[in-house]
């Protein structure tokens, strides 16, 4: 935990520089003032809320995963029989791993495509021009529309005799089945991309605002062309926000239930039976709460591991001096 003890900071005169070259850590100066006057009490409100509303239910959910809770025992759930890892072993037999794989791969692909879209949109609306406000609002629309409306609209458009196939037929391409069969996986990705890219856009937008005015001027003075400037000067500013956005976006794709549910219905075609679907159906339609709690916890753990590896690797949580590398 070396990072905990130091607070290196960029030397004056170089904090505007995106590259590591110009920075000289000023050694480990103990900051007498901050070390003694840590207002840790400010963490209290948030901490209490999260413990109460997320922590406790999580513990409860953990308990639920260890008992045989279904429609027959729901009423007196405190007395439901304890079955230890019974739910967990059953979870693995229900195709949970396959579902998790579908979920994770779908999430990663969606993020990979939405990231450049979002960054491009942020860059494109950075400079003021007439009507920029409207364009910015337009960009936000897919994210603002309720998920089930988006799914319903796309579901209608992707019917075998829907508008997408009609248009494709005009160009001589047979659309085929979008909502069942092997193509359904790509349909899910497509619709998710359409609905979720503004998320990355917003984060990139915030990140772009932290670019100092002088940076622009300086690189103009240097005669930098737009592409090198973009790549070497501006984009590094976006690294932190965009990487965070990608992380959170991936998590939200993995947990997105409404979109696949409304697009494909339940039971869902095998190719698109994502993890939230299988957990929801088990819990709310099959009424097997213990089992679904176990499923959710298994997927949580399986996702948490790469998650923390990602965080460590990118040092998103520890890197705190000046601009990102």
């Amino acid at each position, binding site marked *: 935990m070396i990072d905990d003890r130091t607070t290196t900071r960029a030397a004056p005169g170089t904090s505007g520089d995106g590259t590591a070259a110009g920075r000289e850590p000023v050694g480990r100066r103990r900051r007498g003032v901050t070390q003694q006057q840590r207002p840790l009490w400010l963490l209290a409100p948030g901490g209490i809320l999260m413990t109460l509303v997320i922590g406790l239910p999580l513990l409860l959910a953990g308990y639920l995963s260890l008992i045989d809770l279904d429609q027959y025992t*729901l009423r007196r759930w405190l007395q439901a029989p304890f079955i230890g890892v019974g739910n967990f072993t059953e979870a693995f037999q229900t195709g949970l791993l396959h579902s998790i794989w579908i979920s994770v791969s779908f999430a990663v692909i969606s993020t990979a495509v939405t990231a450049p879209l979002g960054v491009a949109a942020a860059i494109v609306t950075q400079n003021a021009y007439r009507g920029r406000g409207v364009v910015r609002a337009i960009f936000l629309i897919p994210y603002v529309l309720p998920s089930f409306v988006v799914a319903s609209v796309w579901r209608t458009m992707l*019917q075998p*005799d829907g508008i997408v196939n009609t248009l494709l037929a005009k160009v001589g391409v047979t659309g085929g089945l979008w909502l069942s*069969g*092997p193509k359904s996986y790509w349909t899910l990705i497509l619709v998710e991309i359409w609905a979720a890219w503004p998320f990355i856009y917003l984060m990139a937008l915030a990140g772009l605002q932290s670019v100092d005015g002088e940076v622009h001027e300086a690189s103009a003075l240097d005669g930098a062309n737009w592409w090198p400037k973009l790549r070497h000067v501006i984009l590094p500013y976006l690294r932190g926000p965009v990487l965070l956005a990608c992380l959170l976006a991936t998590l939200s794709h993995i947990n997105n239930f409404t979109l696949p549910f409304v697009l494909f*219905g339940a*039971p869902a*075609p095998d190719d698109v039976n994502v993890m939230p679907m299988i957990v929801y159906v088990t819990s*709310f339609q099959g*009424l097997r709460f213990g089992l679904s709690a176990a499923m959710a916890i298994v997927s949580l753990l399986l996702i948490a591991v790469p998650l923390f590896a990602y965080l460590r690797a990118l040092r998103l949580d520890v890197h705190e001096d000046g601009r990102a590398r």
Partner: protein
Amino acid sequence: MSLRMMRAVVALAGATVLTAALAACGDSDSGSGGGSKTLHVLIGANTQYPAEQQAWMKSTGETFKTQTGATISWETFASASDELTKIQTSVVSGTGPDVYSIGTTFTPTAYSTKAFVTLSDADWQKIGGRDKFVPASLGISGPDQQHQIGIPWVSRPFVMAYNTELLKAAGITKPAATWDELTQQAKQLTKPGQYGLAIGYKDNFDPWKFIWGMSTQAGDPIVDGKTARIADPAVKKAYQTYFGWVTTDKVVDPAAVGWTNPQALAAFAKGNTGYFPMTSATAANTLDAGALKGKWAFALLPTVPPGATSRPANGVEAASILSGDNLVVADYSKNKDLAFQYVKLITDGPAQLQMYKTFGVLPQNAEAAKSLTSDPKLAPIVEAQGKSVATPFTGAWADIQIALTNAVVQSIPDLAKGSISDAQIDSRLDAAQKTAQSSLDRAK
């Protein structure tokens, strides 16, 4: 902003959050205080007749108040999943509505939670007696006469809608009475630009009703005691017939592999389809609104299984699943007597006829139902109500339903390609059999 003010702001912000966390009353539905009692009722939201439903709730509330002095607090649910969630949260916490209106197919699930009042003979008397109701309607009130929780409220039996003009043009005098006849007539009705049947293959609820109907008529009730009978010749024939309409007989629009029931209804309403099986009286509004006005009628669904000309000895004349809404009273309710009074009010003849006139749902009150048989348009529907058969009463039915539907969902790509082999059907049925049996094994 001075330092002091700043501290105050932060303290205030923190306090606000805490207060929010601790704030009790205030904006919840006006607490039942003082003398007058409140009965909490949960019913399904009616998107077809929203204004009428509001009016109905108001007038029923007024009548109830005059009768008992208590007010009704209404709550609506948007869909079947919504309702299930509500039931779960109420059962687990022991608080919630006093009276629920639940779909008949959910009654077994509700029963399995043991959170609803099992009606004693005395309770039935408070409601008006078992004889008040259409006999067939009590079939899904409980596993047997001694353990009934559901009070029949309204009926929505399933029937067939057909295009009178198209049938006449094809020389068909009577709608089909057997499934084979239906397939054959559909072939007669299919020509370029016209189809024999409108089917919603992708609907989440329709497919299993066809399978159940055909199987039950052939003598296979799907659930036999504690055994699932899905990998069974009768069920296989049912699937073959159901799939065959779009693959081999080609009497269905190929796009139907993507249709839900409403889409199939809309397609039928356009006027170029002969039959629309698996619909109910609530479709009447839609059919009269479009191009089909005056050119359609209802008929009983076929009651002879496919591959036969008459029902086998152990076959059941199941014209429809027992479909509609039951009323159940929560065991945790502190207003049980009030609840029974409410139930009595809305299951009495006048109230039932009123609901029919407003919403198009059939009464389960025997007298009211009888008075409607005189209407020719309604005759098939009332007949279907009388010939409705209950689906197996087991807590595992929800899973079985899903398993049967899943077999169709996974087959859709094959249907779209135009053919599905027997081997594939067998493998899907085996999978369904397995999940169904394991659910039945767990049932208590």
